[in-house]
């Protein structure tokens, strides 16, 4: 493939992937139905006695009740926040599967980001930091190399 064709090909590939991503992101299949909303909400609350399983996942009685509570509240027109607040009032913060983003709990969001950034900086420094270095071959290096070669020849008799 000639180089110019390939450049055009790459432009097409990048343009296509970007536009397809945009379509995927914005055409989300219409407004959320009640059923979808109930499903989403059920996924976001923990069943209080099920060791971290969500209300949607658990077969425990309390999960079924909370599912029913969510369904009833959605049908009654309650907002997400109202449903959340009422569940938190009853079962406390542990009913939330997604930890709050304030106070001590915010660390759970901040720490990974900080660590990844630090790691990326470290890796970046390890790579770029080496680039400017002098890579002259010294006589000593050449001697070492010669020794390594002769040794290998000897060993392999």
């Amino acid at each position, binding site marked *: 493939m000639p180089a110019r064709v390939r450049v055009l090909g790459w432009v097409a590939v990048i343009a296509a992937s970007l536009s397809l991503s945009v379509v995927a992101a914005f055409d989300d299949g219409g407004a959320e139905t009640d059923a979808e909303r109930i499903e989403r909400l059920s996924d976001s609350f923990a069943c*209080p*006695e099920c060791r971290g399983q969500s209300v949607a996942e658990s077969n*425990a*009685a*309390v999960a*079924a*009740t*909370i599912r*029913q*509570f969510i369904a*009833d509240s959605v049908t009654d027109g309650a907002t997400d926040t109202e449903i959340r607040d*009422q*569940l938190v009032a*009853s*079962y406390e913060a542990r009913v939330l599967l997604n930890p709050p983003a304030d106070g001590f709990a915010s660390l759970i969001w901040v720490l990974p980001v900080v660590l990844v950034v630090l790691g990326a900086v470290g890796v970046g420094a390890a790579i770029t930091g080496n680039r400017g270095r002098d890579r002259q071959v010294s006589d000593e290096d050449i001697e070492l190399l010669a020794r390594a070669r002769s*040794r290998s020849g000897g*060993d*392999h008799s």
Partner: protein
Amino acid sequence: MAESMIEQPVDGPGEEPAPAPTPASGMGPARITSIVVGVVVAGLIVLFAFGRDDPEADASDLLGARAAPVQGELLDASGAFDIDDHRGSWVLVNFFATWCPPCVAEHPELVELERWGADRGDLQLVSVVFNDPPDAVARFFDERGGGWPVIDNPTVAVDWRVAQIPESFLVSPSGQVVLHVEGQLAASEIKRVMEGE
């Protein structure tokens, strides 16, 4: 086999340790990192040794609190129930389902309490059903006796923080939760609390 023979001259016995490119003096990155990791691991161990994610800590703190609302249409559609109509009387709030074996097992105890309470005249039973079709509940009561009000309102279970059924609460005449029974209830337990006042 072959690779280890090749290895011998380099890594075999009698060979000096790999040449140290950087002298071990002072604090190299490996040392600093291992100190940091060591501290974190030690913290983790302390946390595991002394921090307990204790499910028992969840025991209902409703105990001693004012009773949360219990209201709803009666399952047999003969009216409504509201706990506030029963202030001045003991109320036993029972959460159950016909499909839950311990609930079935505790039913005779409730029937006994209803009979005993009727003699005293100051105990009202109410059951909040969990996830159960009304006809199943009706048949359940027909077969096993008992005629106290049954409501189906998931908000009640949420308000009362019910996690597993059966679960029962005894509310005093003043509207305070005085007993919380997780699992099967025994009639004697309720009687003891009510008589010991």
